[in-house]
């Protein structure tokens, strides 16, 4: 047996170790599942970590009701294929109050549907540890994030009071009501994720692959008109273009890119050539300066 391991095997080993620690030390863990590529990798690692057993925790989808229909289909497919325990939560208060991605503004919309929805679910099910797919490379403010990220009784992140993390020894002690967010993919880069998906042949939501889809231009974005709810100008007609998505969010807020990449190698090739930060496709981050930091303090992932 060779002495050295590949970088992907090392990253995989680290992630599995983290997941097993959480299961051993926490009473009610949950894994966030958005059907995105990072979620798909997390799911894959969880299946490996507890093999030949089943994944011993539920998966949680915070459903804004505005996900792409392909996302719902993919989610349900994964649930039945792996026999997952899936929990779906929607912030019904916000829906009743008329919050929607068109009129509310992306800040208010995301705050209500994603953040409040998440906090409601964590409270409802009394989860003490929640796995998220965030990576340190993704964004400046994530570079210093710990793998076990502590949240107080109000799910708030106190950046001044995070515990030092040494080796792979994680301090899992919390007081009643407190919780942690766990980031098993902390040390993966976007390229690692793609390379691993390729290597392990991990199923992906079809939106990542280019296909002819009806789109409208909402500068600077191309929006995929995913269902009849999308408001169009009186004589506006969606145009069919060859597009795909680099990240998945709520469809009215997630920009598509024009692309011919319909296979994994082509996607990776395009990704290598397309040097733009990963989250630039999502509208939510542009609205506020330093918005990620603020959202984390409030309890976002």
């Amino acid at each position, binding site marked *: *047996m060779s002495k050295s391991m590949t970088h992907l095997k090392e990253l995989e080993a680290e992630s599995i*170790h983290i997941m097993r620690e959480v299961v051993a030390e926490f009473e009610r863990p949950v894994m966030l599942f958005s059907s995105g590529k990072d979620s798909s990798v997390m799911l894959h690692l969880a299946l490996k970590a507890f093999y030949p057993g089943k994944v011993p925790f539920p998966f949680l989808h915070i459903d804004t009701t505005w996900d792409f229909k392909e996302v719902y289909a993919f989610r349900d497919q994964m649930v039945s294929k792996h026999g997952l325990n899936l929990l779906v939560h929607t912030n019904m208060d916000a829906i009743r109050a008329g919050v929607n991605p068109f009129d509310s503004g992306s800040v208010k919309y995301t705050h209500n549907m994603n953040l409040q929805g998440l906090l409601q679910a964590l409270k409802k099910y009394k989860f003490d540890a929640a796995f998220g797919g965030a990576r340190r490379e993704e964004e400046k403010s994530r570079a*210093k994030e710990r793998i076990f990220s502590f949240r107080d009784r109000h799910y708030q992140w106190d950046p*001044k009071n995070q515990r030092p993390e040494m080796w792979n020894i994680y*301090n899992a002690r919390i007081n009643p009501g407190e919780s942690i967010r766990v980031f098993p993919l902390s040390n993966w880069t976007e*390229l690692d994720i793609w390379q691993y998906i*390729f290597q392990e042949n991990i199923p992906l939501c079809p939106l990542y692959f280019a296909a002819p889809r009806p789109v409208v231009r909402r500068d600077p974005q191309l929006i995929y008109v995913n269902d009849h709810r999308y408001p169009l100008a009186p004589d506006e007609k969606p145009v069919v273009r060859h597009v795909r998505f680099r990240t998945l969010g709520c469809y009215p807020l997630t920009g598509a890119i024009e692309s011919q990449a319909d296979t994994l190698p082509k996607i990776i090739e395009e990704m290598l*050539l397309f040097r733009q930060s990963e989250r630039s496709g999502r509208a939510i981050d542009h609205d506020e300066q330093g918005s990620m930091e603020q959202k984390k303090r409030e309890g976002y992932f």
Partner: protein
Amino acid sequence: MTAVETLLQNEDIHSYLERNQRKELLRFLTCGSVDDGKSTLIGRLLHDTKTIYEDQLAAVKRDSVRHGTTGGDVDLALLTDGLKAEREQGITIDVAYRFFSTAKRKFIIADTPGHEQYTRNMATGASTCQLAIILVDARHGVLPQTRRHSYICSLLGIQHLVVTINKMDLVNYSEARFNEIKNQYSEFASKLDIRDIHFIPISALKGDNIVESSPHMPWYKSGPLLNHLETVHIASDRNLTDFRLPVQLVLRPNLNFRGFAGSIASGRVRVGDEVMILPSSRKTRVKSIVTADGELKEAQCPMPVVLTLTDEVDISRGDILTDVENPPHFGHDFEANLVWLNEKPFDPEGAYLLKHGTRTTPVTLNILHGIDVNTLESKALDTLHLNEVARCEMSATTPLAFDPYKNNRSTGAFIVIDRQTSNTVACGMILDQDAQSGPTDPWAIVAGHESRARSKVTAMQRQDRLRQKPCTILLTGLTGSGKATIAFELEKRLFELGKLPVVLHGLDLRRQIASDLGFSADDRSENLRRIGGIARILNDNGMIAICAVLAPLASVRQRVKALLGADRYLEVYLSAPLEVCKSRDQAGIYKLAEAGKIKAFPGISSPYEVPESPDLTLATHEISVAESVDQIMTMLKTRGWIE
């Protein structure tokens, strides 16, 4: 054209992916402050390996004009400067992680900001790293912080150091300067426990010897930094001999399967191997190595596996499966180097937990001595504050299976958790329990194994009883400067106040415990060491020590200070001129010295090094004994040692 574009022209994506699957991972740490060019170096590595996205680079170009320090050129330091603003807001950043990748390896940089919490941050960053880059400014050479950084790397078991001599452009790319610093560093580094040290002259700002060999330093032939990072041999760093597997979980998916899940902490395991379970000491054999990718015949560190065993044995989380031939130590007690990570200092009355591998147990700890991270010397330490390092005796309620950290970074490491706050307050590296070779330095405080019994009276109880804070007052000065006179007057004054002082008079001690010593520099140093040792015992037992001793050498006084602890040490220099001292000499010692009958007499035939920054200077030829004592008393009150 970017590297990727070039690459994709020459190679199709499939072979690119194929090749990428064979990369290794190297985690490294960068040590240095902003002034050393650390941010610039990291920015340069990210930039020159095309890790930066176009939009990030555009933002940095914009900012360079506004805030940069490079006169409009792209200021690469700004790439990692997200942390600066956060630091100003008081956000704790112990480590920020950066990522880049080349055709040969993926790299993770642990970037530790260089402010006051440096020891803690560096220890955190170093704990997961295999290699450290130590930045030295070519203009300044090896500084105390260079030593500190190197020592922490050594303490945390880093095996590869790259000493980058930066800002070579500011010293005319001088080979002589490079060699000078290299020699300076090598001399100091012989004290460290690091086997691989590599030196590279660079300019992070100009890009010299970072990715490409520098045209300005043709005399340097060992290749640029990136080449070294890509090729340094790391495959043997892991301990692949001693099999250890701390059990994380017991998996029982059905009645027929009982597997033990965990990451292999060190060594390898094969199907059929005999293994021992600790703490039960039961032996059995490996029946299968189960993974989602199929059963394996063999697995090695750090792979996460599930083992099934041939016998039905009782195993739960926290147990360790180990080699039968080469088992770990097993017991409650061990010694370790601790780094204190929390603002709240160590509390001898506090309740602490230790997490080692997958086992968490209550623990008590006893400080043997502190370690000065700048000089590596031992020093007295009452308690442990943030960023302090100490050698400690640990006693765990549940016995642990452990190895010395230097042999095994997994089973030799632990964290300490405050039971009340649940915070991680310290990290520890277990020391070699079998090492009998004590330090050859007589000043070092040697840990005792023979007796674990210790005093049941705490320092606080003594302080309450005696109503005083223990401290040592060292009166130094020439013969005839008034040391003994002032010492006994001070003793009287303190005693009358209800305190319990003890005078250690150099000449008295020479009649007894130092009767074997002469007056050479070495013997004087040894004499002072003994006096310091006694003062320490007195202080540890709550008493005030007044040392009246010539103590001619600054370096030796410095060691006494370290031995006693700076926070309970007062150095008083009696500054009477030599002529005055001579005139007070009734015993005729100076005459004998001047006649050469006493050799190496300080002030006459050997140096008396005047203290550069004593806590107090008393001109005893100008003020009276009473006034001198008054001044010392005032100083003791200011320090809060007496009321």
